[in-house]
């Protein structure tokens, strides 16, 4: 890569993510996100909750460049994620909800290629790939094709790929969906370590326990809008804690959910 100016702000007052009035309307007219504004501070562990189809993944896709925002502003450490997309993307590591990989490629290739896209030279890639493969206990599977792996192993590969360029901001879209308890606990430990080292983490999950255990700030999205946001402690000021707050914010109650389940 060849240089010119210094884009990313490392000033603590500049948010890791700053979203202002984000709108996303898909072709066909489906409104996925409407007038969404939020900030995530550097070093935060931010939980992003919401029911299926609420707009969590769409918001993440707009931040990372997989989707084009219809309107609004997104900044990553002060860099415009649309205008200066290359500089902004250098700072982000994404572990998506779905396995978006070349399923015939080997584990090593998948992680190594991602390092290459981010401009890591051969020595840097070797060092990072070896470390991550070892860290995620993938050594025995390094030469296997992705399609040959179990669901849990696949999830580890996706996480290793997201971390290969050591991003300042890690975005994890349901990273523990479908993984066993052992990996989940190990991942929680590792994410805690990364966050303590200074990495900003945005986590979406349907496991409230996961959000409760890991995150310091929580936002709840419903029908494309942020309906509640604040420090974790604020969600525990009422009996029922996060679950009750979540159901209330998304327009449901525990009785509501039980009745629906009974009717089904």
């Amino acid at each position, binding site marked *: *890569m*060849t*240089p*010119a*100016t*210094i*884009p*990313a702000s490392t000033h603590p007052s500049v948010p890791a993510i700053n979203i202002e009035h984000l709108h996303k309307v*898909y072709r066909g007219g489906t409104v996925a996100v409407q007038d969404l504004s939020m900030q995530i501070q550097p070093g935060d562990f931010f939980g992003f909750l919401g029911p299926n189809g609420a707009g969590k993944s*769409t918001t993440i*896709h707009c931040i*990372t*460049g*997989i*989707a*084009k925002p219809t309107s609004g502003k997104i900044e990553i450490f002060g860099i415009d994620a649309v205008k*200066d*997309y*290359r*500089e902004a*993307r*250098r*700072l*982000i590591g*994404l572990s*998506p909800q*779905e396995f*978006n*990989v*070349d*399923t*015939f*490629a080997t584990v090593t*290739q998948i992680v190594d*290629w*991602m390092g*290459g*896209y*981010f*401009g*890591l*030279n051969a020595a*840097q890639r070797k*060092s*990072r790939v070896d470390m991550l493969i070892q860290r995620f206990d993938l050594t025995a599977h390094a030469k296997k094709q992705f399609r040959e792996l179990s669901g849990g192993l696949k999830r580890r590969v996706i996480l290793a*790929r997201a971390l290969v*360029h*050591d991003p300042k901001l890690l975005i994890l879209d349901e990273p523990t969906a479908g993984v066993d308890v052992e990996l989940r606990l190990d991942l929680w430990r590792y994410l805690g370590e990364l966050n303590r*080292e*200074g990495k900003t983490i945005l986590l979406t999950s349907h496991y409230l326990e996961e959000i409760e255990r890991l995150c310091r700030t929580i936002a709840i999205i419903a029908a494309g809008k942020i309906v509640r946001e604040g420090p974790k402690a604020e969600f525990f000021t009422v009996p029922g804690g996060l679950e009750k707050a979540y159901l209330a914010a998304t327009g449901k109650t525990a009785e509501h959910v039980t009745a629906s389940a009974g009717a089904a």
Partner: protein
Amino acid sequence: MSEYAEMQAAVPAKRILINWVGLWTIIRREWSRVWRVPIQAFLAPWISALMFIFIFGYVVGGNIRLIAGHRYVEFVLPGVLMLNVVNAAFLQSTSQIYFQRFLRYIEETLVSPLSYVEMIIGSLAMTIVRSVVTSIGILIIGLAFGATHMNNIFEFLFWIVSVSIIFGLLGIMIALWANNFEQLTMLNVFFIAPLSFVGGVFNTVAMLPGWMKWIAYANPFFYFINGLRDSMIGFDEAPHGVGIAVALGLIAIMGAATWRLFSIGYGLRE
């Protein structure tokens, strides 16, 4: 702080001009993908070329008089070579973009610091590599029949590279548009194959009736085949410079169109 993070912190983040490593990675990835199917990628076109050269050039051509002082097999070889370059370029670029979309691993490049131009150039680079490897194999087959000649190596390379770029760009556009494998092959069946066969692979323009000559001159494939033939055996039926202008014009128009499709995210971004 990790070793790599320390390294990053030591070197301030800088604006990227060209992501050379990223560009090279696209080529490495595609090379690896092509080598998963070597029979389909290389052996199939070589066998097909061998059959064309043997039947049309050697067997049938043995009974045809010389064309401008050249044996028919020597006349046919550049046409057969061009057919295979067109196919190799189109198949390489359609398959690489379409499979990336189909399996969604195009998202790996979308979330990385690669510009649209780098993504396009990376795809085209591998398209050229595949065409060149295919061409080398066919030239070697031609040697076995004493049909391979090289009148002008630079002109030869110009035509191989420029036609690879043209059909690489066309393949990228089709792969962005297609939503199934059927649509992916449509252009090849209804446009590329017919136009390339009537573009002078087996005959000179002089052999055609008057009205068909004008159709030949309007067919871009004629200029590609004619140009390659000139570079190999020095037989040229088109006005000088027209073929080069057609090739460069198509590259400019299709390059701009492909860049536009990438920049609006057509078929790429949600």
